[in-house]
């Protein structure tokens, strides 16, 4: 159907809201209670627009477009309504922006500058006081005084997580958001509430008071917390990652799970090695690689086992596969069996690894043992040295009921006692790398921060070790790794791996 918005003609599908139609034209109608992924509440009244000929202003979020309608979004009536709604919203607001974490990304601040700019007509002493700093869940703090009662949080818990922890209590200007009796906000997606809260009522207990948001730099990346591979934005500054936020991408909901958001915590975990911990003591990362190479160099090829991982990138696993081939050992494993799928109907995957599909592609080309066979190989006594990711080597050795000297790559603070050498490795927050998610979609993690000095991604470490062994695999640069991936893996032959923007999905 056709209609006019601010005098310009547009065409929309029947059922489109005025707000939606305007947005498609690039006209952003202010909103607080409206959220594209939640039901329409129509309570904040900031999105009031004028329909020519209609006696009253209507809410753009809840009013469907009608044929021939002429909508005004900037008429004097509309601007007055926005100003008045803002005034109403602010009279009982504490105006504590200087100590509020929402400052800088606050709907009240933004719209006041754009639509309000009125002088206060309300005495400070008359403000309604409410609870502040309420501990309402593992990751959230609630300030009822800052709340504008848009009910996005209540609807999120009812409609998305279906856990229904929240409700509105009392009436009128005594209303406040509260936990239902006996409940706490400890669902798997609670931090989304801090995101969708348009003001500083719900803030992240973790991010609170850490950094002013206008200082944050933003890097588009993906979450490696499970096989779903959600699009994220890494917010960082001065080489510190402060928070992970969901990033809009076609095919993904607007959310991020709490577990995924916390994956950046491992970066600066106190136990994360920045040096190589070897039998000989702590070495610089490069010296650690030399140590590992010297141990490998003393063994026959079959005595060396190489262990790929679905928790490591396509690049890392390819380099390990190439290293195994260069050494000439048959004792390697690039296998992982999993049955991935969204387990909670939202985002969380039954498969916790970000790259099992990617690993399978490499396994199909390079072969190697399955995990079960590999366990037998480890138990056979032939293998004298293992190279792989810390957590998995540990698990594999435990399963094989054996202890073999090993050199492990560590991305996190997971303890690695008894290993011959722990090699620090750059994570996906610190190096550009690729995963393939459970649905076969190529996922691009981008380096947001720098790894500690000398710490390399696994693919580069593998390349160095191969060179030190005199069996170079020629993967000095990432471009070379991507070329090798395209050359070796038929499914990726046509994939735009080096084009940072291009999307790709396995057939």
């Amino acid at each position: 159907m056709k209609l006019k918005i601010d005098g310009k003609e547009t065409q929309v599908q029947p059922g489109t809201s005025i707000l939606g139609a305007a947005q498609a034209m690039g006209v952003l109608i202010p909103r607080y209670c409206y959220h594209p992924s939640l039901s329409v509440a129509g309570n904040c009244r900031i999105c009031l627009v004028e329909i020519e000929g209609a006696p009253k202003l209507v809410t753009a979020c809840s009013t469907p477009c009608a044929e021939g309608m002429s909508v005004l979004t900037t008429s004097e009536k509309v601007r007055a309504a926005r100003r008045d709604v803002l005034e109403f919203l602010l009279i009982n607001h504490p105006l504590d922006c200087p100590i509020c974490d929402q400052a800088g990304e606050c709907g009240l601040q933004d719209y006041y500058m754009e639509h309000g700019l009125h002088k206060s007509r309300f005495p400070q002493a008359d403000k309604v006081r409410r609870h502040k700093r309420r501990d309402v869940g593992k990751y959230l703090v609630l300030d009822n005084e800052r709340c504008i009662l848009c009910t996005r949080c209540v609807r999120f818990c009812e409609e998305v997580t279906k856990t229904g922890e929240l409700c509105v209590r009392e009436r009128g200007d005594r209303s406040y958001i509260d936990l239902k009796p006996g409940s706490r906000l400890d669902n798997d997606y609670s931090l989304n509430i801090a995101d969708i809260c348009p003001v500083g009522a719900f803030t992240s207990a973790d991010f609170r008071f850490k950094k002013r948001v206008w200082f944050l730099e933003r890097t588009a990346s993906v979450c490696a917390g499970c096989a779903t591979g959600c699009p994220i934005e890494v917010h960082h500054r001065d080489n510190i990652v402060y928070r992970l936020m969901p990033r809009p991408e076609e095919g993904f909901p607007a959310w991020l799970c709490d577990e995924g958001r916390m994956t950046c915590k491992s970066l600066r975990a106190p136990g994360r090695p920045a040096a190589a911990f070897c039998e000989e003591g702590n070495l610089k990362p490069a010296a650690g690689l030399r140590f590992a190479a010297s141990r490998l160099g003393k063994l026959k090829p079959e005595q060396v086992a190489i262990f790929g991982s679905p928790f490591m990138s396509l690049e890392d696993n390819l380099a390990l596969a190439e290293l195994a081939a260069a050494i000439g050992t048959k004792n390697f494993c690039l296998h992982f069996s999993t049955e991935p799928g969204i387990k909670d109907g939202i985002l969380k995957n039954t498969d916790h690894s970000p790259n099992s599909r990617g690993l399978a592609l490499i396994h199909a080309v390079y072969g190697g043992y399955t995990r079960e066979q590999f366990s037998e190989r480890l138990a056979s006594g032939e293998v004298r040295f293992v190279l792989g990711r810390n957590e998995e080597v540990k698990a594999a050795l435990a399963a094989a009921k054996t202890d073999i000297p090993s050199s492990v790559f560590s991305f996190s603070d997971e303890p690695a006692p008894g290993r011959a050498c722990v090699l620090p490795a750059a994570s996906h927050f610190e190096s550009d790398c690729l995963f393939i998610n459970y649905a076969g979609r190529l996922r691009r993690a981008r380096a947001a921060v720098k790894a500690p000095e000398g710490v390399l991604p696994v693919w580069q470490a593998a390349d160095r070790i191969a060179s030190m062994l005199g069996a170079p695999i020629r993967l000095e640069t990432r471009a070379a790794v991507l070329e090798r991936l395209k050359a070796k893996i038929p499914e990726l032959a046509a994939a735009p791996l080096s084009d940072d923007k291009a999307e790709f999905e396995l057939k």
Partner: protein
Amino acid sequence: MAEQILLKHKVVSLDGYKASGGWTALEKATRMEPAAIIDEVKKSGLRGRGGAGFPAGLKWSFIPKDSAKERYVVCNADEGEPGTFKDRELIRMNPYLLIEGMAIAGRAIGAKTGYIYVRGEFAREAALLEKCIGEAKVAGFLGEKLFGSGFSFDLHVHKGAGAYICGEETALLESIEGRRGQPRLKPPFPAVEGLFACPTVINNVETLAAVPAIIEKGGAWYAGIGAGKSTGTKLFSISGPVKKPGVYEAELGIPFKTFLEEYAGGMADGKKLKAVIPGGSSTPVLTAEEAMNARLDYESLAAAGSMLGSGGIIVIAEDTCMVDALLVLARFYHHESCGQCTPCREGTGWTEKVLRRFEEGGAGPGDADLLLSISNNMVGRTICPLADALAMPVISFITKFREEFDAHAAGNTCRMGRK
């Protein structure tokens, strides 16, 4: 006194109701085509008695004919508007009239179930209705296959929990469904998606109680009573310093002057009339002169700048302080705002706070204009009319009695002798 339709008989038993001619309209309705019942109600010109005055027959005709869903008749007996107490009186006088009216409405729209949503404070009236419904079921006036027809109808009483907002029809539906009582966005209207997301007709007690007489005697007969488009009789509840405050049934169109003098006995204690709120506390106030020249019907009161509303007439005498009276209203609407929409949630409280300054000292010269500005910023910008229900009195009180507000703001003693 003119024609009495609603308060004609004080009925205390099922037998008494039968003796007064009860159930004949329902029996007739079970033999009528549903469309014919709706036509008759349309012909009667009966308009909603809850306050909005929407034509009842038209409302019934909005129920989709082809919907496979269940349909419901809901009676709004959540009478909570200050100054309005006529539904309670009607239920006390003749609860069967409402029950019969609901069954006829059910027949008209194809509903098998009805709910009477009774204000929580009306505990005795709810018990009375439950008792009468129980008797009617035993006697076969409610239940399966009424009067040997294929029409079955059952009624339930649902008690409110003390929120004025549940008198707003969609908040009422939310409340029956067990949710927080707050108005829904419209559309969809209840006729399409009402109770339990099914087509629903919601009418006021008085509206439904008028239906049996219309079916029995015909829409044309009913339309012959009243004035113009305001057909029939109306219950008026009059309060304030009058000799005989109470509930009276009068023909629509009766001059206020006649009603005040002949029904309510005139002003008490020789007091002089100052102002009248004609249709429940949310309707704009009229000056004594405006009121004395007005007739009590939908059109006349609209022309006078107010509304017939629920027919709750609040009489204000010259010794009443208008600032004080408005503060009472503001306190009520502040207390009862559901808090959903920003302008109402914040505006009602703000209005009360400013009015307190007038009463307790501290109001400045700009505060009367501030009140007008707050009200103008509330009007027409919310989901339901509760914001307007405070804004309209504020605007009319200040516009018509400005000097009293200015005197308070200037720090003078209230002319009524209050501080």
